[in-house]
């Protein structure tokens, strides 16, 4: 389906550049068809909302990657991503042999959709834990990730020495990792699941 206001290229570009107006158009144009698909396939309203968001983030990741080539309309591609993610979700929910009711044209999407979606989920969760750190820790870790040198960070943060800055950074990172592991240790780190320790 082609947007009345935006072409497919504009829709993709708008997504990559996080254009709010374009993102609104995605909801107006495509949400109802995804919703109908989910509701027709053992999902509820909340599932539909979550799925649509996940599909948008997957598309966003693909588009901003740079070498993404669209071989169908944005509508069909987004529907196909959603369909793929939802069938995986049904599989998780033990609808193992579920045969979907399809309301739209769809294409075969590559298996990296799931990989991207799961990666997005993990990053989202890490970010939630990061947001719970003290503002001081968040700032130190962010400055490191932005590529500032130890000397710059020491100065910016007003710390007494570069060694203190290094230690502060590792301590903050340790807290963050411990916080994530405490909540999701089994899923992420796989404690107790491996015999080769």
């Amino acid at each position, binding site marked *: *389906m*082609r947007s*009345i206001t935006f072409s497919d290229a504009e829709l993709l570009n708008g997504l990559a550049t*996080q254009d*709010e107006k374009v*993102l*609104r158009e995605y*909801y*107006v144009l495509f*949400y*109802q*068809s995804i919703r*109908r698909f989910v*509701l*027709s396939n053992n999902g509820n309203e909340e599932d539909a*909302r979550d799925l*649509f*968001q996940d599909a*948008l*983030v997957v598309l*966003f*990741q693909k588009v*901003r990657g740079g070498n993404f080539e669209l071989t*169908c*309309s944005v*509508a*069909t591609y987004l529907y196909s991503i959603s369909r793929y993610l939802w069938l995986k979700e049904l599989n998780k929910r033990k609808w193992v042999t579920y045969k979907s*009711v399809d*309301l*739209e*044209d769809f294409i075969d999407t590559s298996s990296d959709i799931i990989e991207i979606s799961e*990666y*997005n989920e*993990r*990053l*989202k969760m*890490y*970010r939630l834990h*990061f947001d719970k750190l003290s503002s001081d820790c968040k700032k130190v*870790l*962010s400055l490191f*990730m*932005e590529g500032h040198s130890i000397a710059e960070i020491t100065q910016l943060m007003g710390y007494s020495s570069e060694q203190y800055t290094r230690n502060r*950074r*590792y*301590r903050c*990172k*340790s807290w*963050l*990792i411990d916080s*994530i*592991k405490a909540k999701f240790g089994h899923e*992420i*780190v*796989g*404690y107790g699941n*491996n015999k*080769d*320790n």
Partner: protein
Amino acid sequence: METTRTIEQYLEGTLKDEERQAVEDRAKLNANFRKMIRLHKEVNESIRDTNLSEFYDLIRKVSGDYFHSSDSVLQAHEKKHRPVSHRIIFCIAAMLIFAAIAGAILKLTVSKGMSAAELYQKYYSVYDADVIYRSAQAEETALDKAIMSYDMGHYSEALKMLNEIADNDHDNCLALFYRGLTCMETDDMERAIRSFRDIPVDWNSPFNEHRNWYLALSLLNSNHEEEAAEIFQQISAGKGYYAEQASLILQKLKF
């Protein structure tokens, strides 16, 4: 904290050669350590990737606005259709029950058959547009909108759009089907019949079963009982979704 320090320095590439080798050897033998390295790496990516977190924030904002406005529309729709008070509902319900009981007694004493109008009232229900069709063609965007208008009860708006679609594309069976349904809702049975009949008999679509059912009901409600009965017989013999209801109508229909 020492493990964190080692892993972070490994990821930065600031370890000495022998230290780096030691980390890699440990990772080869220890799956949990490998996972820890991956966790550190991904956590760093999540901190670095402010673009993604901004995108999540934007989605939250846009979806919040979108669903808020959708909910407002729904609430307005519900409010519009909300009865004045429970007392009125109770009175109406009591009257309806009384009328139904009286009608049933009268019917049992007078006749076992039902008129076409009665059968129509009994068996007609609004087609729930739970299935929407969309593809990459531009005119089907209009069809989506028309179906949504039908679904929301905006029949005049839906009819206008469906007429335009059907006029431009005589083979658009789905538009003809929904136009038939919309005409039924606006009590224009003759036009509904024409629209349903414009669809080929052998329409290869899951909607064909619904078309036949609603065509038969339209005929029933416009004094074409014999033609309706023919279609009900086909539906009844087909063992499809409406087969049982079609059989019951045939049993009760009196010409």
